[in-house]
């Protein structure tokens, strides 16, 4: 008997402990669930989903347009670089041309100056040579004169009283000097 009541009590307790199985509250739960779900569905499908979809689309558009822009800028930068390189090459070429021209002109001028200097030097050298010849000639003449005089004196000293033949002495000295 005690066992029976205990069992009943446990059973009753168990039943009281499972509100999930209380059929009387089902209509309430189901009704409010449907209300909530429909409300939520309307909020999400009317407001949240379109909004987030458009935000995400805008963002991906913005990103792709930014990427395009970046591509454009990159292309422009590349073009600018190519133009710069071309300008640089042209400038270098011109510089080389100018250098070559200058070098040629300088060479020409140098040649002219050199020729002029050479000519001057040659003229001076010729003049000097002429003067040296002159000096040598006069020196030789003086030597001959002195030799003739000396020879005449010597002859006079060796053979006193005997008037030396001036012409013979001269020719002797001249022949001797030539020899």
């Amino acid at each position, binding site marked *: 008997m005690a066992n029976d009541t*205990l069992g009943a*009590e*446990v059973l009753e*307790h*168990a039943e*009281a*402990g*499972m*509100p*999930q*199985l*209380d059929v*009387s*509250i*089902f*209509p*309430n*739960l*189901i*009704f*409010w*669930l*449907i*209300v*909530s*779900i429909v*409300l*939520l*569905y309307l*909020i*999400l*499908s009317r*407001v*949240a*989903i379109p*909004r*987030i979809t*458009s*935000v*995400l689309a*805008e*963002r991906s558009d*913005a990103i792709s347009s930014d990427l395009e822009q970046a591509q454009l800028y990159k292309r422009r930068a590349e073009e600018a670089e190519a133009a710069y390189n071309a300008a640089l090459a042209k400038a270098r070429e011109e510089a080389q041309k100018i250098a070559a021209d200058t070098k040629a002109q300088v060479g020409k001028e140098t040649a002219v100056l050199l020729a002029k200097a050479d000519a001057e030097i040659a003229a001076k050298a010729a003049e000097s040579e002429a003067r040296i010849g002159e000096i040598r000639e006069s020196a030789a003449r003086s030597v001959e004169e002195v030799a003739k005089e000396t020879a005449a004196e010597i002859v006079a000293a060796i053979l006193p009283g005997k008037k030396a033949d001036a012409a013979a002495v001269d020719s002797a000295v001249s022949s001797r000097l030539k020899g």
Partner: protein
Amino acid sequence: MKRTRRVQERAERATMAGEAEHGGNGFNIHPMEQFKVHPLFGDGAVHWYTPTNATLWMLITVLAITLFMVFGTRGRALIPSRGQSAAEVVFGFTRKMVEDVAGKEGAKYFPYILTLFLFILFANVLAIIPTSFAPTSHIAVTAVLAVAVFVTVTVIGFVKHGTHFFNLFWVSSAPTVALRIVLAVIEVISYFVRPVSHSIRLGGNMMAGHAVLKVFAGFAGALGVGAVLPIVAISAIYGLEVLVAFIQAYVFAILTCVYLNDALHPGH
């Protein structure tokens, strides 16, 4: 896991009953009382239209989702704020799940699945706030959700494919007709068991977890100052319940996607 938890719960209920029998020595634990549905105003009977604590928490769930998904994204910023970012992550995660599992045709049903997923997720998470109410622990609630999915998916299947929808049950890759018949019987049974498992998985998990928490809370209350162990256990189980709240919502949603995929692409 589900089964062990339920066994555990049953054992605990028995213990509790036993303790109660010894007379009010403090072990007066009512783990199932938290699931009671009662009117918000007054003490009258619960009619179908009566606003109850279940109503309150379902509406709080809807409100929380609205705050999260609508209020959080009000800036429509190109560079999202934290709230908007979180809403976008949940949105993107769900959309990817629908597209991955149910294919491109499934994307059309994304709003329905998002609604289900968010409702269950938020109801589960809000339910682990102490003293709150867990609508998803009621089999009536989960059964309505599961049956709605079942009916919708079946209707979609027949509308899209007519009698070809029966290919879902006819395993044409099986070698003999006899085997195909046997398999068809199994497939049909498994098809009709879907809403049952779909709803009980969610409801059972939520109910069991909350009941266990309550039992340990009762132990803690009874032991008073020396209640270190029950409190540690509550903390651990609470963590587990947070995980379960997310996982069960995810499982419900992904199974919905799987069923939808079956309806959109029947045949094996």
